[in-house]
């Protein structure tokens, strides 16, 4: 299977003197959902910002489908779909105009855009909101807008930052169903989250980030093996790893 995202020995953060993440390495292949888990301030969002090309690593290299941000900044941005933790939108555009502009800027044909947009609106029960402005939405609805914009483009790689908080139960189910469908069609997904039960159920592999470093990564079986806790849940394994560190 092809590797979609390769993060190699990345150290980085907001300033050169103070690295938030240290020597972080992992990869994401086709047809897998990988969870990035960690406490508040563990470095999840910083890692994601590095992947998006918003922060420049102090050391190490990040490539998507073999290309780094530095080598091709214009096309790099077209190679992933990003669902941010706090919704970003234009106050001046309606929901429909957001997704239309997303399709347009990614170079999707108009027919394909219509074909994909309608089922998405239906799935997330946002058809009636079509011509309204995100300013009038609740946080969950804005989150749905972000999700629809990413799913519409059908990129090979998804980067999803804490998608579950603020979504209603039906929204969570829709999101996970669609992500699973994307995965089966060959996409790779990196999902940062706090909700370990959901991660355990839907993710193939787990990366445990603590204080800016990767403490463990692998499938649930592998993590059980590393920690010596057979039959344990992800929750237990995670707490074991994090608490160990405190002592």
């Amino acid at each position, binding site marked *: 299977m092809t590797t979609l995202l390769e993060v190699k020995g990345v150290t980085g953060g907001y300033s050169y003197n103070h690295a938030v993440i240290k020597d972080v390495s992992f990869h994401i292949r086709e047809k897998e959902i990988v969870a990035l888990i960690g406490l508040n301030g563990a470095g999840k969002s910083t890692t994601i910002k590095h992947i998006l090309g918003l922060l420049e690593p102090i050391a190490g290299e990040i490539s998507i489908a073999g290309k780094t941000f530095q080598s091709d900044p214009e096309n790099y941005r077209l190679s992933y779909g990003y669902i941010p933790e706090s919704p970003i939108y234009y106050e001046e*555009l309606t929901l429909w105009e957001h997704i239309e502009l997303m399709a*347009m800027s*990614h170079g999707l044909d108009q027919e394909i855009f219509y074909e994909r947009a309608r089922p998405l609106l239906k799935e997330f029960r946002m058809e009636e909101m079509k011509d309204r402005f995100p300013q009038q939405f609740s946080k969950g609805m804005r989150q749905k807008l972000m999700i629809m914009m990413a799913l519409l483009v059908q990129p090979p790689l998804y980067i999803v930052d804490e998608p579950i908080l603020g979504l209603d139960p039906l929204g969570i189910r829709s999101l996970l169903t669609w992500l699973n469908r994307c995965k089966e069609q060959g996409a790779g997904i990196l999902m940062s989250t706090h909700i370990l039960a959901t991660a355990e159920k839907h993710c193939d592999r787990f990366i445990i980030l603590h204080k800016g470093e990767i403490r463990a990564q692998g499938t649930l079986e592998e993590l059980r093996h590393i920690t010596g806790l057979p039959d344990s849940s992800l929750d237990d394994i995670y707490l074991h790893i994090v608490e160990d560190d405190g002592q």
Partner: protein
Amino acid sequence: MKIDVDQLFRKRFHVFSVEFIRYAQYMANGGLAFVGIFLMGLLAFYYRSIIAMIPPWFPLPYAMALVIAFIVVKSPLRTFLLEADLLFLTPHEVRLDRYFRKALVYNFAIQSMVVFIVLLLLMPMYTGVVGAQGVQLWVYWGIPLLLKGWNIYSNWTFLRLPDQKNIGFYTLARFVFSYILLAWVLSEGQFLRLGPIPFGVLICAALLIWLHSRMLTYKKKHSLQWYRLLAIESGLRHRFYQFVNNFRDVPAMQHQVKSRPWLIALTKLLPYRQSTAGHHLFTKKFIRSGDFAGIYFRLLLLSGFVVLILPGPYAKIIAGLLFLFMTASQIGSLWRHQQKRNGYSIFPIRDGQMRQAFSWLRMVLLGVHGVVLVLIGIL
């Protein structure tokens, strides 16, 4: 706990004045202030000859009464209330009378200055064309200021009404009353006079009695509408920022979004293509934002009017060019507004394309403005 209402008002007023002075300095430093002053100078220079163009059949006193009535009736009330007052001040509502009275006095002081300036501008017409003098001039200055005070007070009272529609109705009533009184006074008692009976002033008196009886009832029946007062206050604060924003970009400014479906329909003319994504974005941003499109159309109307009334081709050309310069600098702030949302931009549109889309929009807008001015100038 007792609250010192006088000190509260003094504090709020102080905060506002400090902000006002800071922004006033900002505006004075900007180049646009000079353009504005220059344009006013140009108009002042030609003012007498423009007045001379008014045809003799024109009912000047009634037209002036209309202008003054608009200024006098429109009484937006600043109360310097804050969002948090909903929580902290509402328990003291009964003791806040003095606070609001001070706010009303402030509003009267500011708005009577506007009335004064309008009266000053209309004065040459009134003395020159109508030929008023003596006692009539005292009336000319006195009645509008009295009406201003009365309108501020009555508007404040009618704001207690829970239904917005009723307030609109009473604003209309205030307008009718103010207009009839002004027209009667400015026409030296000729308005609606049939033989010896001055119907105008009789209607006025009846309206005044009726309005005051309504106000007495409502004062007893309804209490303050806090949410409305807050909405008015934030609206006026926004207007102030918007005004300053004409000269300098205001960081605290929340851009208002209006849906404007009839203008948005124009964007359907743009083709759906990857290379036009930036055009769509900028055009929609421009149309929907209350500020950019609003100011553009206001400048368009104002410049058309100025170019129309200025005599001689040179004055027309200079004024037209100055207005085009103002429009160009307004459109420039659209680009800066876009740039301000730095960090992650949600659509992967290339920088070069954004720049190109912006230049295109600027060209279209300036082009339209220019063509309109040339057409009006030729007329």
